């Protein structure tokens, strides 16, 4: 049958590639939300990263410098959000939306003359004999460095939140900012740093789209990946490893759907391409309805503005 023509090892490899952009964005946003800030501008920061990363990579010829630029680009936009919400006490939801709208517009402008160009290729990481292992070699060890970096990042965030003192302070700030302030922690400083980290991660995720996954620059090319990353954080109940699992699950759906399209299934392409969004909504419903587990993990001060009264 049609599914028979799909090689599972290739599928698995493709799944990891498809999942990496949203995984990067989600792990960044997870840290931001753990610090008690809801940044709905992930989509905007991602597209910023996609655009800046592309421009830098094309001009320098180096994809790695491109990724660096993307991280800085995402961070720059996130600083704008930090300025608004932390210094000027604006509504986080509105500011996040503004960030997304602004990012989409700005990148459409910046990237105008880059449409239709092919970016420099990002090399696969040479893992020597590992990639010769049957099946697993093809599936797991034929990727570029960013795929492994994203997994390392998940591990690092997990360790940071669970075992480091700085991570504990970050959780404390997100859980109860008044208490953290009373103990003398700098709530805003912690939050600004978290927001910047989130911006850098979203930028990397965006650049992965424009430099590796697609690889091309088109206006609005993130098509909702940032929003899916936000949903992923909820799905993961703010746990790093669950974000990884969720991202790969999502990647699986995307790849399967693409393969079905390619295999010429008798369902119009438009309906198949809806499936990632519908699956995301479906998973959100599943997670949110299990009241106790999900909400217990939500940071106590999420989306509440902090202003020291004394």
């Amino acid at each position, binding site marked *: 049958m049609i599914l028979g023509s799909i090689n599972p090892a290739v599928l698995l490899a493709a799944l990891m590639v498809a999942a990496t952009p949203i995984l990067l964005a989600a792990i960044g946003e997870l840290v931001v939300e753990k610090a008690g800030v809801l940044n*709905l501008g992930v989509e905007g920061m991602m597209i910023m990263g996609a655009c800046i990363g592309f421009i830098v990579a094309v001009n320098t010829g180096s994809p790695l410098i491109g990724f660096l630029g993307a991280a800085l680009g995402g961070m720059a936009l996130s600083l*704008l959000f930090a*300025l*608004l919400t932390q210094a*000027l*006490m*604006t*509504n986080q*939801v*509105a*500011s996040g*939306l*503004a960030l997304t*709208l*602004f*990012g*989409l*517009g*700005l990148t*459409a*402008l910046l990237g*105008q003359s880059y449409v239709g160009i092919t970016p420099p290729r990002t090399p696969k990481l040479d893992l020597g004999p590992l990639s010769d292992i049957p099946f697993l070699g093809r599936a797991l060890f034929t990727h570029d460095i960013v795929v492994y970096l994203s997994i390392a990042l998940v591990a690092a965030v997990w360790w940071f939140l669970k075992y480091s003192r700085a991570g504990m302070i970050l959780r404390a700030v997100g859980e109860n900012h008044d208490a953290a302030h009373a103990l003398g922690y700098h709530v805003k400083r912690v939050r600004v740093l978290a927001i910047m980290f989130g911006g850098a991660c979203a930028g990397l995720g965006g650049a992965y789209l424009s430099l590796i996954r697609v690889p091309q620059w088109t*206006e609005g090319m993130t*098509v*909702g990946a940032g*929003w*899916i990353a*936000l*949903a992923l954080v*909820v799905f993961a109940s703010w746990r790093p490893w669950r974000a990884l699992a969720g991202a790969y699950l999502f990647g699986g759906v995307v790849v399967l759907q693409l393969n079905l399209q390619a295999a010429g299934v008798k369902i*119009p392409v*438009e*309906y198949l*391409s*809806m499936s990632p*969004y*519908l699956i*995301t*909504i479906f998973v*959100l*419903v599943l997670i*949110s*309805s299990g*009241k106790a587990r999900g*909400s217990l993990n939500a940071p106590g001060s999420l989306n509440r503005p902090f*202003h020291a*009264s004394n």
Partner: protein
Amino acid sequence: MIRLERRKEPSKFWRIANPFLAVVLTMLAGGAMFAALGKDPVAAIRLIFFDPIFSQTFGSYSRPQLLIKSAPLILIAIGLAIGFKANIWNIGAEGQYIIGALFGAGVALAFFPAPGWYIFPLMVMAGAFGGFLWAMIPAILKTRFNTNEILVSLLLVYVAERILAAMALGLMRNPDIPGFPGSRDLRRYEAAHNAELIANTGIHWGVVAALIAVIFAYVMMTRHMLGYQVQLAGQAPRAARFGGVSPARLVVICLGISGALAGLAGMFEVSGPGGQVRIEFASGYGFTAIIVAFLGRLNPFGIVLAGLLLGLTYIGGELSQMILQLPGAAIQVFQGMLLFFLLALDFQTNYRLRLTRGMRI
């Protein structure tokens, strides 16, 4: 040392002054951006903000356009603002706009080519109903499963866009012109055409509907218990429960109103200025309306002014694209900046800057 100090009461002056200040700042920053793009900033700003209305050469074309562009923005923003006041964030109006258009066009295409006065009213109802239905998805998921309405309503925009494409290529495709995507032109089907009511003014049924919605929203928000409950729920959800407000009912009402209004806007667009169901039918009104709602201070009359201003930037953007070869995206940046400046300025409404002499011992 400088510090923010919370005001005892929000400043009324800044609440009203800030949108104007934000427009001025946006013009300055936008001018700088145009200069960076190598264009004459003064000419560009003039072209965007003044020429669409005052120009001798193309004013007669662009003046009617103002109402055509502003009406859907106002119609959608009115609904969104009611929800925003209650802290219910429908940001998927773009999707509801698309589905409303599809429902409206669907009715028209089903009757084609029959004449009949009842067809257009049916389309209006279908459009509102379509938007309402699409908004009920996040509403019901929120009330039943506690799912975040921001994410769901937004994700449904992408789903709606794909349904739109599927319709334009499939079910609703014009059978008379094979090979081209897109439906029949509703402007050529008299019973379904949302025609200009007064020649060369741009006034069509959508403008009338926007006007009715503004008045309706104003009365509801200032004189009716529902408006009071909306504000109460937004400001103090626990107090709202104490006052007997059911949060679930409010979610359904707010999303329902904004969905229906967005659906109406889509229907008036597809049967008039848009003309047909096409893949590129959606032009971002649903997102721009978010800016309109904020810029208008979530107040119905403020929204009218804000809607006219952003409608203006749409036309100005088109003009500057034709005349100055400015990129179309520039106008999006413009709109984004406007919202940024407004949010940034708003701290003055609730806080005041104070110089403190920190005498340390």
